[in-house]
Protein backbone atom coordinates (compact mmCIF):
# COMPACT_ATOMS: atom_id res chain seq x y z
CA UNK A 1 0.00 0.00 0.00
CA UNK A 2 1.52 3.31 -1.08
CA UNK A 3 -0.83 5.90 0.35
CA UNK A 4 -3.70 5.57 2.81
CA UNK A 5 -6.11 8.27 3.93
CA UNK A 6 -8.26 7.58 7.00
CA UNK A 7 -11.17 9.89 7.77
CA UNK A 8 -9.33 12.94 6.50
CA UNK A 9 -11.17 16.24 7.05
CA UNK A 10 -10.15 19.81 6.28
CA UNK A 11 -11.82 22.88 7.75
CA UNK A 12 -11.59 26.42 6.43
CA UNK A 13 -12.93 28.72 9.13
CA UNK A 14 -16.66 27.84 8.98
CA UNK A 15 -16.62 25.55 5.96
CA UNK A 16 -15.80 21.86 6.11
CA UNK A 17 -14.21 21.47 2.68
CA UNK A 18 -13.27 17.81 3.03
CA UNK A 19 -15.33 15.48 5.22
CA UNK A 20 -14.10 12.12 6.49
CA UNK A 21 -12.49 10.97 3.26
CA UNK A 22 -10.86 7.53 3.32
CA UNK A 23 -9.18 5.64 0.49
CA UNK A 24 -6.09 3.63 -0.29
CA UNK A 25 -3.74 3.86 -3.23
CA UNK A 26 -1.93 0.77 -4.46
CA UNK A 27 1.04 0.33 -6.74
CA UNK A 28 0.25 0.86 -10.41
CA UNK A 29 -3.03 2.68 -9.77
CA UNK A 30 -4.01 5.99 -11.33
CA UNK A 31 -6.71 7.37 -9.06
CA UNK A 32 -8.84 10.11 -10.62
CA UNK A 33 -10.37 12.64 -8.23
CA UNK A 34 -13.53 13.86 -9.95
CA UNK A 35 -16.54 15.90 -8.95
CA UNK A 36 -18.10 19.35 -9.38
CA UNK A 37 -16.36 22.61 -8.48
CA UNK A 38 -16.08 23.11 -4.75
CA UNK A 39 -16.31 19.38 -4.04
CA UNK A 40 -12.98 19.55 -2.18
CA UNK A 41 -10.72 17.79 -4.71
CA UNK A 42 -7.87 20.32 -4.70
CA UNK A 43 -8.18 20.77 -0.95
CA UNK A 44 -7.76 17.02 -0.53
CA UNK A 45 -4.60 17.11 -2.68
CA UNK A 46 -3.18 19.88 -0.49
CA UNK A 47 -3.92 17.92 2.67
CA UNK A 48 -2.30 14.80 1.20
CA UNK A 49 0.90 16.73 0.51
CA UNK A 50 0.79 18.32 4.01
CA UNK A 51 0.53 21.89 2.75
CA UNK A 52 -2.77 22.38 4.60
CA UNK A 53 -3.76 21.47 8.18
CA UNK A 54 -6.09 18.45 8.31
CA UNK A 55 -7.54 16.01 10.81
CA UNK A 56 -7.53 12.26 10.40
CA UNK A 57 -4.61 10.17 9.33
CA UNK A 58 -2.56 10.07 6.13
CA UNK A 59 0.02 7.33 5.79
CA UNK A 60 2.73 7.39 3.13
CA UNK A 61 4.27 3.92 2.76
CA UNK A 62 2.77 3.06 6.15
CA UNK A 63 4.35 6.08 7.84
CA UNK A 64 2.19 8.87 9.25
CA UNK A 65 3.01 12.04 7.27
CA UNK A 66 2.32 14.16 10.35
CA UNK A 67 5.58 12.77 11.72
CA UNK A 68 7.59 13.20 8.50
CA UNK A 69 9.64 16.24 7.55
CA UNK A 70 8.82 18.19 4.41
CA UNK A 71 11.90 16.65 2.78
CA UNK A 72 10.88 13.09 3.66
CA UNK A 73 7.43 13.72 2.22
CA UNK A 74 8.96 15.20 -0.92
CA UNK A 75 10.99 12.01 -1.40
CA UNK A 76 7.71 10.06 -1.24
CA UNK A 77 5.43 12.23 -3.35
CA UNK A 78 5.72 14.97 -5.91
CA UNK A 79 3.03 17.50 -6.79
CA UNK A 80 2.25 19.17 -10.12
CA UNK A 81 -0.08 22.16 -9.90
CA UNK A 82 -2.51 23.72 -12.30
CA UNK A 83 -0.67 26.89 -13.22
CA UNK A 84 2.88 27.97 -12.65
CA UNK A 85 4.64 31.25 -12.23
CA UNK A 86 8.39 31.69 -12.11
CA UNK A 87 9.66 35.14 -11.21
CA UNK A 88 13.28 35.05 -12.28
CA UNK A 89 15.03 34.02 -15.47
CA UNK A 90 16.11 30.50 -14.49
CA UNK A 91 17.01 28.11 -17.29
CA UNK A 92 14.84 25.06 -17.96
CA UNK A 93 17.62 22.87 -16.58
CA UNK A 94 17.91 24.90 -13.35
CA UNK A 95 14.15 24.65 -12.90
CA UNK A 96 14.17 20.89 -13.37
CA UNK A 97 17.16 20.54 -11.04
CA UNK A 98 15.13 22.13 -8.21
CA UNK A 99 13.29 18.81 -8.13
CA UNK A 100 16.43 17.26 -6.64
CA UNK A 101 16.25 19.47 -3.53
CA UNK A 102 14.86 16.73 -1.28
CA UNK A 103 17.77 14.44 -2.14
CA UNK A 104 20.44 16.91 -1.00
CA UNK A 105 21.48 17.53 2.59
CA UNK A 106 21.94 20.99 4.03
CA UNK A 107 25.70 20.55 4.42
CA UNK A 108 26.71 18.81 1.24
CA UNK A 109 24.87 19.45 -1.98
CA UNK A 110 26.18 16.09 -3.25
CA UNK A 111 23.50 14.15 -5.04
CA UNK A 112 25.05 11.19 -6.86
CA UNK A 113 22.02 10.17 -8.92
CA UNK A 114 20.94 13.78 -9.44
CA UNK A 115 22.52 14.74 -12.75
CA UNK A 116 21.38 11.52 -14.37
CA UNK A 117 17.82 11.98 -13.14
CA UNK A 118 17.69 15.59 -14.34
CA UNK A 119 18.98 14.64 -17.76
CA UNK A 120 16.60 11.68 -17.99
CA UNK A 121 13.62 13.88 -17.05
CA UNK A 122 14.63 16.51 -19.62
CA UNK A 123 14.92 13.85 -22.32
CA UNK A 124 11.65 12.20 -21.39
CA UNK A 125 9.73 15.48 -21.60
CA UNK A 126 11.44 16.48 -24.84
CA UNK A 127 13.14 19.49 -23.25
CA UNK A 128 16.77 18.44 -23.59
CA UNK A 129 17.40 20.63 -26.61
CA UNK A 130 15.96 23.69 -24.89
CA UNK A 131 17.53 23.06 -21.46
CA UNK A 132 19.51 26.32 -21.59
CA UNK A 133 16.46 28.38 -22.51
CA UNK A 134 15.13 31.03 -20.13
CA UNK A 135 11.89 29.76 -18.55
CA UNK A 136 10.30 33.22 -18.84
CA UNK A 137 10.25 32.75 -22.64
CA UNK A 138 8.33 29.45 -22.54
CA UNK A 139 4.69 29.10 -23.55
CA UNK A 140 2.16 27.92 -20.96
CA UNK A 141 2.30 24.37 -22.30
CA UNK A 142 6.11 24.27 -22.41
CA UNK A 143 6.34 25.65 -18.87
CA UNK A 144 3.95 22.99 -17.57
CA UNK A 145 6.06 20.33 -19.30
CA UNK A 146 9.17 21.79 -17.64
CA UNK A 147 7.45 21.49 -14.26
CA UNK A 148 6.47 17.92 -15.13
CA UNK A 149 10.16 17.25 -15.80
CA UNK A 150 10.96 18.77 -12.39
CA UNK A 151 8.44 16.45 -10.76
CA UNK A 152 9.96 13.45 -12.60
CA UNK A 153 13.44 14.51 -11.49
CA UNK A 154 12.16 14.53 -7.91
CA UNK A 155 11.89 10.77 -8.39
CA UNK A 156 9.13 10.18 -5.85
CA UNK A 157 7.03 7.01 -6.18
CA UNK A 158 3.73 8.90 -5.91
CA UNK A 159 2.64 11.71 -8.19
CA UNK A 160 -0.14 14.12 -7.21
CA UNK A 161 -1.53 16.16 -10.09
CA UNK A 162 -3.86 19.05 -9.34
CA UNK A 163 -5.75 19.88 -12.54
CA UNK A 164 -2.46 19.77 -14.45
CA UNK A 165 -3.87 20.42 -17.94
CA UNK A 166 -6.73 22.82 -17.27
CA UNK A 167 -5.47 25.73 -19.33
CA UNK A 168 -3.70 23.68 -21.99
CA UNK A 169 -4.83 22.87 -25.51
CA UNK A 170 -5.76 19.31 -26.47
CA UNK A 171 -2.33 18.40 -27.85
CA UNK A 172 -0.62 19.44 -24.61
CA UNK A 173 -3.27 17.70 -22.51
CA UNK A 174 -2.53 14.50 -24.36
CA UNK A 175 1.24 14.95 -24.19
CA UNK A 176 1.23 15.57 -20.40
CA UNK A 177 -1.08 12.61 -19.68
CA UNK A 178 0.80 10.30 -22.05
CA UNK A 179 4.06 11.18 -20.30
CA UNK A 180 2.52 10.44 -16.92
CA UNK A 181 1.12 7.11 -18.07
CA UNK A 182 4.53 6.20 -19.48
CA UNK A 183 6.07 7.15 -16.11
CA UNK A 184 3.51 4.98 -14.32
CA UNK A 185 4.55 1.88 -16.28
CA UNK A 186 7.60 1.37 -14.05
CA UNK A 187 6.87 -0.78 -10.99
CA UNK A 188 6.42 0.82 -7.56
CA UNK A 189 4.64 3.93 -8.77
CA UNK A 190 1.15 5.41 -8.45
CA UNK A 191 -0.67 8.58 -9.47
CA UNK A 192 -3.54 10.63 -8.05
CA UNK A 193 -4.92 13.41 -10.18
CA UNK A 194 -7.72 15.93 -10.05
CA UNK A 195 -9.40 16.11 -13.44
CA UNK A 196 -12.49 17.95 -14.66
CA UNK A 197 -12.72 16.29 -18.04
CA UNK A 198 -14.49 12.98 -17.42
CA UNK A 199 -13.36 11.57 -20.77
CA UNK A 200 -9.71 12.16 -19.81
CA UNK A 201 -10.41 10.55 -16.44
CA UNK A 202 -11.98 7.55 -18.12
CA UNK A 203 -9.21 7.19 -20.69
CA UNK A 204 -6.24 7.33 -18.30
CA UNK A 205 -7.60 6.39 -14.85
CA UNK A 206 -7.64 2.93 -13.33
CA UNK A 207 -9.67 4.03 -10.32
CA UNK A 208 -11.87 6.98 -9.48
CA UNK A 209 -12.91 8.86 -6.35
CA UNK A 210 -16.06 10.87 -7.00
CA UNK A 211 -16.55 13.71 -4.52
CA UNK A 212 -19.62 15.75 -3.65
CA UNK A 213 -19.59 18.61 -1.14
CA UNK A 214 -16.46 17.33 0.54
CA UNK A 215 -17.55 13.73 0.93
CA UNK A 216 -16.93 10.56 -1.02
CA UNK A 217 -19.88 9.89 -3.35
CA UNK A 218 -18.34 6.86 -5.03
CA UNK A 219 -15.00 5.08 -4.93
CA UNK A 220 -13.69 2.15 -6.95
CA UNK A 221 -12.55 1.10 -10.40
CA UNK A 222 -13.33 3.67 -13.10
CA UNK A 223 -15.91 1.44 -14.77
CA UNK A 224 -17.72 0.98 -11.47
CA UNK A 225 -17.82 4.71 -10.66
CA UNK A 226 -18.54 6.03 -14.13
CA UNK A 227 -22.13 4.85 -14.40
CA UNK A 228 -25.00 7.00 -15.57
CA UNK A 229 -26.83 6.97 -12.22
CA UNK A 230 -23.78 7.78 -10.09
CA UNK A 231 -22.44 10.60 -12.25
CA UNK A 232 -25.83 12.18 -12.87
CA UNK A 233 -26.76 12.16 -9.21
CA UNK A 234 -23.56 14.10 -8.42
CA UNK A 235 -23.37 16.46 -11.41
CA UNK A 236 -27.17 16.98 -11.59
CA UNK A 237 -27.13 16.96 -15.38
CA UNK A 238 -27.17 14.57 -18.31
CA UNK A 239 -23.43 13.84 -18.42
CA UNK A 240 -23.72 11.33 -21.26
CA UNK A 241 -25.48 13.91 -23.43
CA UNK A 242 -22.68 16.45 -22.74
CA UNK A 243 -19.99 14.07 -23.93
CA UNK A 244 -21.86 12.96 -27.06
CA UNK A 245 -19.90 12.42 -30.22
CA UNK A 246 -18.33 15.63 -31.54
CA UNK A 247 -18.73 14.53 -35.16
CA UNK A 248 -22.30 13.33 -34.87
CA UNK A 249 -24.21 14.69 -37.88
CA UNK A 250 -25.65 18.15 -37.36
CA UNK A 251 -29.36 18.84 -37.67
CA UNK A 252 -32.53 17.63 -35.97
CA UNK A 253 -32.28 20.49 -33.47
CA UNK A 254 -29.09 18.98 -32.02
CA UNK A 255 -26.88 22.02 -32.60
CA UNK A 256 -26.54 24.77 -30.03
CA UNK A 257 -27.59 24.73 -26.42
CA UNK A 258 -30.65 22.77 -25.44
Amino acid sequence: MMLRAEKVSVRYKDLEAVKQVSFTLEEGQWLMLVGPNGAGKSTLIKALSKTLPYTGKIALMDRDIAKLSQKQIARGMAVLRQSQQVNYAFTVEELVRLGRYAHQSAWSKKDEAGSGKVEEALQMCGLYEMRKQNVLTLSGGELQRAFLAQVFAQDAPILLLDEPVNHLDLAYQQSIFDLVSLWLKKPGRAVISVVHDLLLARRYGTHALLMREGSVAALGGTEAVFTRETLESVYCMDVGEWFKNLYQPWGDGQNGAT
Partner: protein
Amino acid sequence: MVNNKQKNNFYAQGGRARFLRFAALGLLTLTAFLVCVAVGSVSIPLSATAEILYKALTGQTLVSGTEATIILTVRLPRVLSVFLVGASLSLCGAAMQGLLRNPLADGATLGVSSGASLGAMLAIFFGITLPGLPLAGTAVLSIVFAFFSLLLVLSLAFALDRSLETSTIILIGVIFTMFSGALMSLLITFAGTHLRSLTFWMLGSLAGSSYQEAFFLLAVLLTCGALLFMHSSELDAFAIGEDNAANIGVSVRRVKLTVMVLVSVLIGICVAIGGSIGFVGLIIPHITRALTGPAHKKLLPFSMLIGGVFLMLCDLLARTLLSPVELPLGVVTSLIGAVFFVVILMKRRMTA
Protein backbone atom coordinates in the same frame (compact mmCIF):
# COMPACT_ATOMS: atom_id res chain seq x y z
CA MET B 1 20.05 11.36 -29.43
CA VAL B 2 22.80 13.27 -27.77
CA ASN B 3 26.39 12.38 -28.54
CA ASN B 4 28.86 11.69 -25.77
CA LYS B 5 30.87 14.85 -26.07
CA GLN B 6 27.75 16.94 -25.60
CA LYS B 7 26.88 14.78 -22.62
CA ASN B 8 30.22 15.35 -20.96
CA ASN B 9 29.90 19.07 -21.42
CA PHE B 10 26.44 18.99 -19.96
CA TYR B 11 27.45 19.40 -16.35
CA ALA B 12 31.03 20.60 -16.56
CA GLN B 13 29.97 23.70 -18.43
CA GLY B 14 31.23 27.10 -17.50
CA GLY B 15 33.41 26.12 -14.52
CA ARG B 16 36.47 27.78 -15.98
CA ALA B 17 34.61 30.83 -17.25
CA ARG B 18 32.96 31.26 -13.87
CA PHE B 19 36.33 31.13 -12.13
CA LEU B 20 37.76 33.73 -14.51
CA ARG B 21 34.81 36.00 -13.95
CA PHE B 22 35.18 35.68 -10.21
CA ALA B 23 38.93 36.36 -10.45
CA ALA B 24 38.29 39.44 -12.61
CA LEU B 25 35.81 40.73 -10.09
CA GLY B 26 38.27 40.10 -7.26
CA LEU B 27 40.89 42.10 -9.13
CA LEU B 28 38.42 44.91 -9.74
CA THR B 29 37.57 44.95 -6.03
CA LEU B 30 41.23 45.22 -5.03
CA THR B 31 41.89 47.99 -7.55
CA ALA B 32 38.85 49.97 -6.46
CA PHE B 33 39.89 49.47 -2.85
CA LEU B 34 43.38 50.79 -3.52
CA VAL B 35 42.09 53.80 -5.47
CA CYS B 36 39.60 54.67 -2.73
CA VAL B 37 42.31 54.55 -0.09
CA ALA B 38 44.71 56.60 -2.22
CA VAL B 39 42.39 59.36 -3.43
CA GLY B 40 41.05 62.08 -1.19
CA SER B 41 41.65 65.64 -0.07
CA VAL B 42 45.31 64.62 0.14
CA SER B 43 46.03 62.35 -2.79
CA ILE B 44 48.69 59.77 -2.25
CA PRO B 45 50.27 57.95 -5.21
CA LEU B 46 48.93 54.42 -5.73
CA SER B 47 52.38 52.88 -5.38
CA ALA B 48 52.98 54.61 -2.06
CA THR B 49 49.52 53.56 -0.88
CA ALA B 50 50.18 49.97 -1.83
CA GLU B 51 53.54 50.04 -0.09
CA ILE B 52 52.12 51.45 3.13
CA LEU B 53 49.30 48.89 3.12
CA TYR B 54 51.71 46.05 2.38
CA LYS B 55 54.07 47.05 5.18
CA ALA B 56 51.20 47.42 7.63
CA LEU B 57 49.80 44.04 6.65
CA THR B 58 53.08 42.19 6.92
CA GLY B 59 53.81 43.87 10.23
CA GLN B 60 57.04 45.51 9.11
CA THR B 61 58.27 48.63 10.85
CA LEU B 62 55.74 51.25 10.01
CA VAL B 63 56.63 54.13 7.82
CA SER B 64 55.99 57.19 9.85
CA GLY B 65 54.77 60.41 8.35
CA THR B 66 51.47 62.03 7.51
CA GLU B 67 50.77 59.79 4.53
CA ALA B 68 50.88 56.61 6.60
CA THR B 69 48.80 58.25 9.32
CA ILE B 70 46.12 59.40 6.88
CA ILE B 71 45.94 56.00 5.25
CA LEU B 72 46.10 53.80 8.31
CA THR B 73 44.04 55.77 10.82
CA VAL B 74 41.54 57.65 8.66
CA ARG B 75 41.00 56.18 5.22
CA LEU B 76 41.56 52.46 5.70
CA PRO B 77 38.97 51.90 8.43
CA ARG B 78 36.50 54.08 6.54
CA VAL B 79 36.94 52.37 3.19
CA LEU B 80 36.78 48.97 4.89
CA SER B 81 33.54 49.87 6.67
CA VAL B 82 32.04 51.30 3.49
CA PHE B 83 32.92 48.14 1.58
CA LEU B 84 31.42 45.91 4.26
CA VAL B 85 28.22 47.96 4.53
CA GLY B 86 27.81 47.92 0.74
CA ALA B 87 28.37 44.17 0.68
CA SER B 88 25.92 43.57 3.55
CA LEU B 89 23.14 45.72 2.11
CA SER B 90 23.45 44.11 -1.33
CA LEU B 91 23.42 40.64 0.19
CA CYS B 92 20.24 41.55 2.12
CA GLY B 93 18.63 42.93 -1.04
CA ALA B 94 19.45 39.79 -3.00
CA ALA B 95 18.14 37.51 -0.24
CA MET B 96 14.89 39.47 0.19
CA GLN B 97 14.26 39.70 -3.54
CA GLY B 98 14.61 35.93 -3.66
CA LEU B 99 12.47 35.24 -0.61
CA LEU B 100 9.63 37.51 -1.70
CA ARG B 101 9.92 36.69 -5.45
CA ASN B 102 9.97 40.44 -5.84
CA PRO B 103 12.73 42.24 -7.75
CA LEU B 104 11.95 45.56 -6.08
CA ALA B 105 12.34 44.35 -2.48
CA ASP B 106 15.08 46.00 -0.42
CA GLY B 107 15.65 47.29 3.09
CA ALA B 108 14.62 50.78 2.04
CA THR B 109 11.55 49.91 -0.06
CA LEU B 110 10.27 47.55 2.65
CA GLY B 111 10.67 50.12 5.42
CA VAL B 112 13.17 47.94 7.31
CA SER B 113 15.90 50.60 7.24
CA SER B 114 13.68 53.29 8.70
CA GLY B 115 12.45 50.87 11.34
CA ALA B 116 16.06 50.16 12.25
CA SER B 117 16.79 53.92 12.35
CA LEU B 118 13.89 54.43 14.74
CA GLY B 119 15.32 51.71 16.96
CA ALA B 120 18.76 53.27 16.97
CA MET B 121 17.33 56.70 17.80
CA LEU B 122 15.27 55.29 20.65
CA ALA B 123 18.43 53.72 22.06
CA ILE B 124 20.18 57.09 21.94
CA PHE B 125 17.12 58.92 23.31
CA PHE B 126 16.76 56.68 26.33
CA GLY B 127 20.50 56.28 26.70
CA ILE B 128 20.41 52.51 26.37
CA THR B 129 23.94 51.17 26.31
CA LEU B 130 25.71 48.06 27.45
CA PRO B 131 28.72 48.61 29.68
CA GLY B 132 32.00 48.32 27.79
CA LEU B 133 30.32 48.12 24.39
CA PRO B 134 29.35 51.64 23.31
CA LEU B 135 27.80 50.43 20.06
CA ALA B 136 25.78 47.56 21.48
CA GLY B 137 22.72 49.53 22.64
CA THR B 138 21.98 51.12 19.30
CA ALA B 139 22.92 47.97 17.39
CA VAL B 140 20.65 45.67 19.41
CA LEU B 141 17.66 48.01 19.23
CA SER B 142 18.29 48.58 15.52
CA ILE B 143 18.23 44.83 14.87
CA VAL B 144 15.11 44.24 16.95
CA PHE B 145 13.28 47.10 15.26
CA ALA B 146 14.45 45.98 11.83
CA PHE B 147 13.04 42.50 12.45
CA PHE B 148 9.69 43.68 13.76
CA SER B 149 9.35 46.26 10.98
CA LEU B 150 9.89 43.51 8.42
CA LEU B 151 7.39 41.28 10.20
CA LEU B 152 4.82 44.08 10.44
CA VAL B 153 5.17 45.21 6.83
CA LEU B 154 4.96 41.66 5.50
CA SER B 155 1.96 40.71 7.64
CA LEU B 156 0.10 43.88 6.70
CA ALA B 157 0.86 43.26 3.03
CA PHE B 158 -0.20 39.62 3.42
CA ALA B 159 -3.46 40.61 5.11
CA LEU B 160 -4.26 42.98 2.23
CA ASP B 161 -3.20 40.70 -0.57
CA ARG B 162 -2.31 37.07 0.00
CA SER B 163 -0.29 36.81 -3.17
CA LEU B 164 2.13 39.50 -1.90
CA GLU B 165 2.02 41.56 -5.09
CA THR B 166 4.98 43.84 -5.70
CA SER B 167 2.91 46.99 -5.54
CA THR B 168 1.21 46.06 -2.25
CA ILE B 169 4.50 45.40 -0.47
CA ILE B 170 6.08 48.60 -1.73
CA LEU B 171 3.00 50.62 -0.77
CA ILE B 172 2.97 49.27 2.77
CA GLY B 173 6.73 49.85 2.93
CA VAL B 174 6.29 53.50 1.96
CA ILE B 175 3.49 54.02 4.50
CA PHE B 176 5.59 52.41 7.21
CA THR B 177 8.60 54.57 6.29
CA MET B 178 6.46 57.71 6.63
CA PHE B 179 5.09 56.50 9.94
CA SER B 180 8.49 55.80 11.46
CA GLY B 181 9.74 59.09 9.99
CA ALA B 182 7.01 60.87 11.94
CA LEU B 183 8.01 59.06 15.12
CA MET B 184 11.65 60.05 14.58
CA SER B 185 10.65 63.71 14.16
CA LEU B 186 8.68 63.37 17.39
CA LEU B 187 11.77 62.06 19.16
CA ILE B 188 13.80 65.01 17.91
CA THR B 189 11.12 67.45 19.09
CA PHE B 190 11.36 66.08 22.61
CA ALA B 191 15.07 65.36 22.45
CA GLY B 192 16.15 68.07 24.93
CA THR B 193 19.64 67.26 26.09
CA HIS B 194 19.93 64.38 23.64
CA LEU B 195 19.43 66.65 20.62
CA ARG B 196 23.13 66.88 19.88
CA SER B 197 23.81 63.15 19.91
CA LEU B 198 20.60 62.41 17.97
CA THR B 199 21.33 64.85 15.17
CA PHE B 200 24.93 63.72 15.14
CA TRP B 201 23.76 60.15 14.61
CA MET B 202 21.24 61.17 11.95
CA LEU B 203 23.88 63.00 9.95
CA GLY B 204 26.18 60.13 10.73
CA SER B 205 28.06 58.67 7.84
CA LEU B 206 30.83 56.17 7.79
CA ALA B 207 33.35 59.04 7.81
CA GLY B 208 34.55 58.48 11.35
CA SER B 209 34.55 54.68 11.24
CA SER B 210 36.97 52.89 13.48
CA TYR B 211 38.70 49.54 13.06
CA GLN B 212 36.50 48.29 15.86
CA GLU B 213 33.41 48.99 13.78
CA ALA B 214 34.96 47.49 10.68
CA PHE B 215 35.83 44.24 12.48
CA PHE B 216 32.39 44.10 14.02
CA LEU B 217 30.83 44.49 10.57
CA LEU B 218 33.17 41.88 9.14
CA ALA B 219 32.32 39.34 11.82
CA VAL B 220 28.57 39.85 11.38
CA LEU B 221 28.79 39.78 7.58
CA LEU B 222 30.84 36.58 7.57
CA THR B 223 28.43 34.83 9.95
CA CYS B 224 25.16 35.96 8.37
CA GLY B 225 26.61 35.72 4.86
CA ALA B 226 27.67 32.11 5.37
CA LEU B 227 24.25 31.20 6.79
CA LEU B 228 22.44 32.93 3.91
CA PHE B 229 24.73 31.23 1.41
CA MET B 230 23.76 27.86 2.90
CA HIS B 231 20.16 28.71 2.00
CA SER B 232 20.90 29.35 -1.70
CA SER B 233 18.91 26.35 -2.94
CA GLU B 234 15.97 27.26 -0.72
CA LEU B 235 15.98 30.84 -2.04
CA ASP B 236 16.04 29.44 -5.59
CA ALA B 237 13.05 27.26 -4.70
CA PHE B 238 11.02 30.29 -3.58
CA ALA B 239 11.05 31.50 -7.19
CA ILE B 240 8.53 28.77 -8.11
CA GLY B 241 6.15 29.84 -5.33
CA GLU B 242 5.88 28.83 -1.69
CA ASP B 243 3.51 25.90 -2.29
CA ASN B 244 5.74 24.41 -4.96
CA ALA B 245 8.77 25.00 -2.75
CA ALA B 246 7.09 23.06 0.06
CA ASN B 247 6.29 20.22 -2.34
CA ILE B 248 9.89 19.79 -3.40
CA GLY B 249 10.80 19.52 0.29
CA VAL B 250 11.58 23.04 1.53
CA SER B 251 10.49 23.84 5.10
CA VAL B 252 9.00 27.13 3.99
CA ARG B 253 8.27 28.69 7.38
CA ARG B 254 11.64 27.84 8.87
CA VAL B 255 13.56 29.19 5.87
CA LYS B 256 11.48 32.37 5.76
CA LEU B 257 12.05 33.06 9.45
CA THR B 258 15.78 32.32 9.21
CA VAL B 259 16.31 34.60 6.23
CA MET B 260 14.25 37.38 7.82
CA VAL B 261 16.27 37.22 11.06
CA LEU B 262 19.62 37.22 9.21
CA VAL B 263 18.57 40.13 6.99
CA SER B 264 17.34 42.10 10.01
CA VAL B 265 20.61 41.56 11.86
CA LEU B 266 22.65 42.76 8.88
CA ILE B 267 20.49 45.80 8.13
CA GLY B 268 20.25 46.67 11.82
CA ILE B 269 24.04 46.66 12.22
CA CYS B 270 24.57 48.65 9.02
CA VAL B 271 22.04 51.29 10.09
CA ALA B 272 23.45 51.51 13.63
CA ILE B 273 26.93 52.12 12.26
CA GLY B 274 26.36 54.04 9.04
CA GLY B 275 22.84 55.41 9.16
CA SER B 276 20.31 54.76 6.44
CA ILE B 277 21.89 54.17 3.04
CA GLY B 278 19.17 53.55 0.49
CA PHE B 279 18.91 51.80 -2.86
CA VAL B 280 22.18 49.83 -2.73
CA GLY B 281 20.29 46.66 -1.86
CA LEU B 282 17.88 47.33 -4.71
CA ILE B 283 20.24 48.18 -7.57
CA ILE B 284 23.12 45.80 -7.00
CA PRO B 285 21.27 42.46 -7.05
CA HIS B 286 19.59 43.64 -10.25
CA ILE B 287 22.87 44.34 -12.00
CA THR B 288 24.37 41.15 -10.60
CA ARG B 289 21.45 38.99 -11.73
CA ALA B 290 22.04 40.19 -15.28
CA LEU B 291 25.65 38.97 -15.00
CA THR B 292 25.27 35.70 -13.10
CA GLY B 293 21.68 34.60 -13.69
CA PRO B 294 19.18 34.21 -10.87
CA ALA B 295 20.71 31.19 -9.07
CA HIS B 296 21.55 32.37 -5.54
CA LYS B 297 24.68 30.28 -5.24
CA LYS B 298 26.31 32.74 -7.62
CA LEU B 299 24.05 35.74 -7.07
CA LEU B 300 24.73 36.13 -3.32
CA PRO B 301 28.57 36.23 -3.35
CA PHE B 302 28.74 38.30 -6.54
CA SER B 303 26.21 40.78 -5.17
CA MET B 304 28.36 41.20 -2.07
CA LEU B 305 31.51 42.01 -4.02
CA ILE B 306 29.81 44.29 -6.54
CA GLY B 307 27.84 46.03 -3.77
CA GLY B 308 31.02 46.63 -1.78
CA VAL B 309 32.80 48.11 -4.80
CA PHE B 310 29.77 50.23 -5.73
CA LEU B 311 29.50 51.77 -2.26
CA MET B 312 33.26 52.42 -2.08
CA LEU B 313 33.03 54.33 -5.35
CA CYS B 314 29.94 56.25 -4.16
CA ASP B 315 31.85 57.16 -1.02
CA LEU B 316 34.77 58.32 -3.16
CA LEU B 317 32.36 60.57 -5.08
CA ALA B 318 30.87 61.86 -1.83
CA ARG B 319 34.33 62.79 -0.56
CA THR B 320 35.75 64.34 -3.72
CA LEU B 321 32.91 65.74 -5.82
CA LEU B 322 32.40 69.03 -3.92
CA SER B 323 35.59 68.89 -1.87
CA PRO B 324 36.22 70.25 0.73
CA VAL B 325 32.48 69.83 1.44
CA GLU B 326 31.65 66.19 1.97
CA LEU B 327 28.29 64.87 0.78
CA PRO B 328 26.43 62.33 2.92
CA LEU B 329 26.88 58.86 1.42
CA GLY B 330 23.13 58.17 1.55
CA VAL B 331 22.54 61.22 -0.64
CA VAL B 332 24.84 59.95 -3.38
CA THR B 333 23.34 56.42 -3.40
CA SER B 334 19.79 57.77 -3.36
CA LEU B 335 20.51 60.14 -6.25
CA ILE B 336 21.90 57.31 -8.35
CA GLY B 337 19.38 54.79 -7.04
CA ALA B 338 16.26 56.84 -7.72
CA VAL B 339 17.18 57.24 -11.38
CA PHE B 340 17.98 53.55 -11.61
CA PHE B 341 14.68 52.62 -9.96
CA VAL B 342 12.75 54.56 -12.60
CA VAL B 343 14.75 52.88 -15.37
CA ILE B 344 13.89 49.41 -13.98
CA LEU B 345 10.21 50.30 -13.78
CA MET B 346 10.20 51.67 -17.35
CA LYS B 347 11.99 48.60 -18.67
CA ARG B 348 9.54 46.26 -16.93
CA ARG B 349 6.62 48.22 -18.35
CA MET B 350 8.09 48.14 -21.86
CA THR B 351 8.79 44.41 -21.89
CA ALA B 352 5.58 43.43 -20.13
